[in-house]
């Protein structure tokens, strides 16, 4: 059932998966990474972020790591999240679909400054 929520993959979920593609992150780290990779267009609020994380956890595309101590503030414990192999497969297929779309857009010279 949760898997159906990811078909099609929501933009927020895609950005979270993309943020976790290269490192494990906690909630605030995910929010910053998403903001960075979208050029500041997307700033995830706490409700949206953790609601999406819950959906992704139930779908099995991410997993929650053991509560870890923050390296900067060692007294505070944080939950870290990691992409699973199913999540990696999902984000890869989504990126490939987007890449195909991008190729079509370039062939149609829609993108400004695109190569002919």
């Amino acid at each position: 059932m949760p898997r159906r929520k990811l078909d099609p993959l929501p933009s927020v979920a895609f950005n979270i998966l993309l943020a976790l593609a290269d490192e494990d992150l906690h909630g605030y780290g995910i929010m910053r990474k998403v903001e960075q990779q979208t050029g500041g267009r997307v700033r995830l609020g706490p409700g949206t972020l953790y609601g999406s994380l819950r959906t992704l956890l139930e779908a099995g595309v991410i997993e929650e790591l053991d509560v870890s101590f923050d390296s900067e503030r060692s007294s505070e414990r944080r939950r870290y999240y990691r992409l699973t192999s199913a999540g990696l497969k999902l984000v890869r297929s989504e990126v490939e679909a987007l890449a195909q779309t991008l190729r079509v857009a370039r062939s149609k010279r829609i993108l400004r400054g695109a190569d002919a």
Partner: protein
Amino acid sequence: MPEKLYAFLLKLYPDHFRRTYGDEMLRLVADRAASEKGFLRGLRLWLDLLLDFAVSLPREYVNPRATPIVATQSLNGEPTFQLLAERGPNPILLCLGGILSALMFWACVFAVAHTGTFPALFLTSSLLQGLAQVTSAQAQYPYEQESPIRNSAGNLAGERSSGNFASVGDYSFCMTAQRDIPSNSVQPLFVFDFAPPGASGIALIDGRVVKIFKNEQHLSIHAHVIAGDHHFVLHLDRPAESTFMSSNDDIEHCQPK
């Protein structure tokens, strides 16, 4: 400061969501507040938080997390289940339930007392009679017959007969006739007593005597009695005796009024 305000907003989220992610959400807000200082950035932070709150709160209620009931361990060979939530009884709801129960009880009593249709189902006859005595009134309807009465020897046996119809309680009425004899003593001529069939417990009894004939051999009474919605015709043709009891055979139950 933003954390305290947001902690208040957090209480509006569903319990399971708040328990699971509440601390993390507060920490995220604290991190953002620490890194986004200044009036404009603080204003943007709050706009983000409020917009996120407006979007995510309804979604958490519309799509609640499916909580599985997990079989845990057997107790004396019988499976038991985890208790997912414990919630004590709400005192306000308990009081409200008590008030509603009392209202329902008295509504039933009121309905029974005013319809008289189901007395045997809910109330004892004594209680019903108690209710009836409060809500009904007794009535008497006197009659008088002026005719000389003579015996077989031709002597005057009486000058006048009188009597009345009266309601007795709410179930029966009696008719008593008395004969005045020359000795000025009063003798009861007859007593009529019956419970009208079909009369409801609270029916007001009404009646009138149409005609009375009496001679030395027979006492004849033809009377119409209206009891509630029922119309009774009384026929009496008996030897004149000092006192006798009638029976329901003397009553003709006519069509309802």
